[in-house]
């Protein structure tokens, strides 16, 4: 899906975090802590990015037994492309990350 509008400051922040480890699934609460965003900001943002095809979500089994499955997120190819479009974004190839 093509995206005309510039990402918001919070979306840029989230794109930065998620593009830092392209293939790693991240949980909502961990993203909140790392981005310093409130849940009231993070979840609407994740919903919007999912609807725009920038983020994919998946239920992941918990690491600790007895805990419920958790929703995890990572960038799609479109999300990664948008993250890389932005000026000042670190080149993923220089850090050894390959684009799948």
């Amino acid at each position: 899906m093509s995206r005309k509008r510039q990402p918001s400051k919070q979306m840029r922040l989230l794109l930065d975090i998620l593009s830092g480890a392209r293939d790693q699934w991240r949980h909502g609460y961990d993203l909140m802590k790392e981005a310093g965003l409130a849940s009231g900001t993070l979840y609407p943002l994740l919903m919007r990015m999912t609807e725009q095809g920038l983020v994919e979500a998946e239920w992941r089994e918990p690491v600790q037994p007895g805990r419920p499955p958790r929703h995890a997120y990572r960038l799609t190819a479109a999300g990664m492309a948008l993250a890389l479009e932005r000026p000042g974004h670190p080149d993923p190839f220089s850090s050894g990350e390959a684009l799948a």
Partner: protein
Amino acid sequence: MTISLSRIIMTLATASMGESRREWAMAMEAEFAAAAADDAQFRFATGCLIAAWRDMLRVEEGRFMLTSYALALGLILPMAALQVGCALFGLPYLYPGGGGLAGALLEGRAHEHLLRNLYQAAILPLALLQLLIGFGHVRVAWGMLERDWAGVTRTGTAILAGAVTLILFMSIFFLDSRQALLLGSIVGVELAIIAILARWHARLPIGIGQPG
């Protein structure tokens, strides 16, 4: 802040998310445990509630839910209270002259001794009918929020039939059915609005906003 208050806020948040956001509500719920482990459950739950309410205004299903609650709380339940109040407490509405049930039974009137027996026999079933119309409104409000449109249609039809019966009997007994006609008209408007709401619900896209 106690965990129970945070839990209540979290439950309210997930309940406000609607069907199309059910998976997101479950996602928030699953993260609540992680927030609680960090003793940040209140802030997390409050944020989720704000997100849910903001999302309600943004998506069509949320606007539908808000409209349903506004209609139930602003029109249907006040009508129920009015009908039950008239039937149980003899509020002046419905009966001519503003005398309530006592006035309808001709208490203190010159022709009371001629007609009282007849009116006593008729007014009490009418009051019972009005009481049933009132409770029917509560059932309609509940069914509307549960999206049980078949049940709402059945109860709404019964209420309409009751209102028409009231209109006929008020015309016969008092030669004045203005208030009953007003009641019947309001019931008609209510049912028309509910029919529009049911059609809106049928048109709602299922699955919009679900994560892929």
